[in-house]
């Protein structure tokens, strides 16, 4: 019984983790049709922003929930202006240019912090469940992920900003005709995506540690989740996370954690063979 509960909790945590690392990418891909290859580096920068501000004396929670998203959001704003803005509509070129940006960011961070892993010790403790235990912090990140998606749903569905964003997402020219400045919407979207990635990176930093090259660990998983999810931002990321997270957990338990990841990626490739438009290209089509 305890074991079943712990497996279930582990499953939920895995799914939430996947959704968390994909959220920022999903916002940028879903709304702007831009594949942001520097997404992994945004997560990495979020981790470093939290680490540095915490070491400088900032409260850990402020470092994670304020310093990291603000810093990465600002970096995103600069990149949007310097690089992304020139490439709208050229999907493959944005993919290549952001790949270049990702390498450059890894380079810069390596120069500043050196090529080693730094850590923030995970706060809170763990809750015992019978003979097992699960980290309270991991449960917290799951809760934050849930709040993040609920917040995203609320903003997109219930606010004027969300309406404009959805409009620009569906038909850029039409939105422009109606007096919306698409450039502004796109810039805001990119910065929002970057800030969410920064928050996600900071949240997972205490669990995994931070290193300049850590983005590479996340990029494939985040990508394949977003692409498998399809065009609907929230439903897509969630449904794909649920599916791939389950595969990951199942294989991790039966075999090893690494083979769990291999199974996750392989399952996604198989999924895309069957549903090239992603899950929400076929199911939940009218969702967000």
């Amino acid at each position, binding site marked *: 019984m305890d074991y079943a509960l712990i497996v279930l909790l582990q499953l939920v945590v895995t799914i939430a983790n996947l959704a968390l690392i994909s959220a920022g990418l999903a916002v940028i891909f879903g709304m702007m049709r831009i*594949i942001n290859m520097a997404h992994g580096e945004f997560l990495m920068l979020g981790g470093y922003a939290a680490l540095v501000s915490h070491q400088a004396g900032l409260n850990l929670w402020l470092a994670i929930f304020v310093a990291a998203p603000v810093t990465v959001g600002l970096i995103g704003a600069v990149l949007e202006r310097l*690089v992304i803005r*020139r*490439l709208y509509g050229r*999907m*493959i*070129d944005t*993919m*290549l*240019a952001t*790949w*270049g*940006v*990702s*390498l*450059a*960011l*890894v*380079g*810069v961070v*390596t*120069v500043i912090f050196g090529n080693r892993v730094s850590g923030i010790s995970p706060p809170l403790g763990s809750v015992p469940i019978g003979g097992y235990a699960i980290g309270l912090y991991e449960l917290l990140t799951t809760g934050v992920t849930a709040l993040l998606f609920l917040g995203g749903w609320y903003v997109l569905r219930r606010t004027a900003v969300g309406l404009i964003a959805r409009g620009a997402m569906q038909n850029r020219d039409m939105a422009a005709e109606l007096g919306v400045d698409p450039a502004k919407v796109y810039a805001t979207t990119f910065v929002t995506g970057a800030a969410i990635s920064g928050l996600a990176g900071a949240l997972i930093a205490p669990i995994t540690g931070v290193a300049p090259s850590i983005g*590479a660990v996340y*990029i*494939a998983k985040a*990508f*394949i989740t977003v*692409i498998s999810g399809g065009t609907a931002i929230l439903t897509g990321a969630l449904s794909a996370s649920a599916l791939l997270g389950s595969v990951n957990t199942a294989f991790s338990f039966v075999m*090893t954690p*690494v*083979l769990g*990841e*291999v199974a996750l*990626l*392989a399952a*996604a*490739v198989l999924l*895309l*063979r*069957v549903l*090239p438009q992603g899950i929400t290209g076929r199911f939940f089509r009218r969702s967000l």
Partner: protein
Amino acid sequence: MTLRDALGWLLVAAAALYALVAVPAGGELTTMINGSIYASYAILALSLALIWGYAGILSFGQAAFFGLAGYVYAVAGLNLESTPLAAVIAVAAAAGFAALLGYFMFWGRISDVYLGVITLTVSLILYRFINQTAGEEWTIGAAPLGGFNGIPSTPILAPPGHPDEPFLPEQIYMLAVGALLACYVICKLAMATRFGRAVIAIRENESRAELLGYDTRRYKLGIFTLGGAIAGAGGVLFANSVFVSPNMFSLQTNGQVIIWVIVGGLGTFAGPVIGCFLLMALSTWLGSLDAGPGFAVLDPNLVMGVVLTLCVLGLRQGLLPTALTLGERLLAKTRGRGAAELGQPAEERP
């Protein structure tokens, strides 16, 4: 054959002569070993130039075939008597894997960015898998897979029938340069055939090609398989120049190939090879400057990233086509009218 083609072949011949005669005459062993590595990477670049530049298939995970062939060669070489047979098996394995993956993608009607993401994912699956094979249980016959250490005991090619006399590094170098040249010629010839023309037509407009009656999936599968085989040949040579390690599949290797092709010039064969040599030399040079305090800023990743971003933003055609266009303009100016017929305009990026 236009004047530009003739000039191209002349330059290729000159480069080959230099690599095969002048460089070995210098006799430095490190130059030879580096040369073998460069040449095997250049073959990898050539394979991507073929499928991306000519067929419009952006494979973000071309190194999958490179690494796979390297590992198959090492495992087969350690288990079999004959290393040439192992090399043949390895190239066939890479081609077979490419065919399988290609079937999967092209019959699933996957295109554009999705192709890039799937190929990259496949490459990273292999990377993750190989990286965790450190334990005893991961042994195939006489070959331990070795996890993140790779297989340092990768066997060196030996002439058929003489398994006890493996080639010297100088001979591997000659072999690598020869293979690069052969792959270049194969690519050129493949594109000159009816098949090659159809592939270019599909790149330009897939639905139009389909309306003309071509089964575009077959053509894409064919060119993708050929690309896989060529990348595999590069992998076998790399295994002989260094040894096989998971790094062959890594995100970094996959990224580098893309950068070489973009910088050298998409839509050409010589461009990516030149891009590969130039950027490999650049990163080797940057790597050797590690000690200097002023150069710490010049992290190789940083430089590569900036080069790629700037190329995508500014130098959209890549080095070789830009140089050719400039040269033609210069020629047209000095010769006046009529010189524009010299060559076809540089091919557009797909």
